[in-house]
């Protein structure tokens, strides 16, 4: 590692002041499970590292009638085990639980996973499916963007050099809803080859899908919303054929790459299969136990 100066501000105001002063010469440190690798390999050589973990306002999970707030430096383990992140928000707990080993879970943070902007990040598709918003702070102004607009490319986000990700906000889902998070990997504890999250809500007293969001990871430069697939199902009381068609459209819209972990064509096949499974599981959850017959194989 090249030498750098280190700050661990106690307040958000101190952190944004440091960011204003050092801007692109600085790197933000949360859990460090990605940043330390980049520092060790000299892929990044900041003159200043700003550690955000001492800032209380950036940590923890809070629920209200409006929705769920997760601070940027909240640990994967805290999200995976939080009762607040279960139930209707359960797919974010599942995504967080999928990130790495116990050692990683105990150190890596939600904000770090998102700001690292890996196309395969396991927390991104669940949050996009849940209509999450990124709350961003700087010394000048705060702003909020839908999470799907947060990612610009591998390793690239919409954050300016003077900005930091403060928290993620998930609006409370309306009515009967269901979600599913699916992933496939080469070995039990590897980066996802493909991951997929579905979140849907049903129309009042009916089995029609009022709204659905499908998000895919590791098959494009950024986490991807599968809008053409959603359009097949929105407003429908879907049968198996419609679900298959949505899954086909999700696969057609993906642009996976060949790499050391898998071929593009295998990834595309897996998009179709995981999307189908995720829609079926989300529907089962939304319909509840009595109305599941249609989806039993």
């Amino acid at each position: 590692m090249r030498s750098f100066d280190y700050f661990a501000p106690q307040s958000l105001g101190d952190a944004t002041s440091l960011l204003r002063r050092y801007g692109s010469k600085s790197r933000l440190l949360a859990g460090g499970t990605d940043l330390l690798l980049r520092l060790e390999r000299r892929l990044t050589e900041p003159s200043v590292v700003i550690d955000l973990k001492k800032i209380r306002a950036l940590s923890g999970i809070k629920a209200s009638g409006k929705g769920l707030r997760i601070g940027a430096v909240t640990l994967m383990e805290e999200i995976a085990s939080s009762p607040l992140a279960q139930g209707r928000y359960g797919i974010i707990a599942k995504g967080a639980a999928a990130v790495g080993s116990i050692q990683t879970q105990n150190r890596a943070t939600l904000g770090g996973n998102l700001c690292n902007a890996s196309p395969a990040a396991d927390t991104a598709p669940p949050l996009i499916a849940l209509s999450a918003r990124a709350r961003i702070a700087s010394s000048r102004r705060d702003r909020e963007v839908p999470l799907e607009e947060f990612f610009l490319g591998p390793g690239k986000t919409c954050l300016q050099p003077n900005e930091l990700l403060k928290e993620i906000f998930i609006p409370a889902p309306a009515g009967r809803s269901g979600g599913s998070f699916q992933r496939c990997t080469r070995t039990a504890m590897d980066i996802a080859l493909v991951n997929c999250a579905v979140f849907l809500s049903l129309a009042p007293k009916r089995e029609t899908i009022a709204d659905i969001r499908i998000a895919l990871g590791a098959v494009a430069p950024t986490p991807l919303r599968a809008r053409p697939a959603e359009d097949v199902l929105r407003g429908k009381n879907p049968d198996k054929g419609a679900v298959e068609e949505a899954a086909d459209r999700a696969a057609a819209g993906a642009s996976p790459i060949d790499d050391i972990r898998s071929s593009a064509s295998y990834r595309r096949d897996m998009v179709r299969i995981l999307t189908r499974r995720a829609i079926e599981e989300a529907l089962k959850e939304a319909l509840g136990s009595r109305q599941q017959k249609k989806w039993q194989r």
Partner: protein
Amino acid sequence: MAEMKKRLRVTINGERYEKEVSPATSLLDFLRTDLNLTGTKEGCGEGECGACSVILDGRLVDSCLILAVEADGQEIQTIEGVGRHGRLHPLQKAFAEKGAAQCGYCTPGMIMAAKYLLDHNPSPTPEQALEAIAGNLCRCTGYGSIVDAILSAAKER
């Protein structure tokens, strides 16, 4: 840039340390080089193998992916603090009895991961024991004897 050292105060295995350290030093290097606590091993240096596992403020972590300065004011347990007063911890005894160490390089990290498990779950199932060491690689044993040792230590305690 001139080297800017930071003052670091940590408690390691119950003992207080105060040292000047460069921010660009991993916790692993600080333990091994600055404090000569060489029980904690460096395997991959990338957070994949778990050989550098320590317990930091009650959480099992990879010390290669943490800056020493991040641990300021915190408490660290390393393999050197697992057995006390010259007596082996039940896990250490069980690892020896069950042949759970061959080359031994992963063993300190394995013991820390196993201790973290037993601290939270005193009577794990074989599946839970296997899951608890999923972040720790062993190239010798095939893991069977390690799981046996963890379960046997759990019965001992």
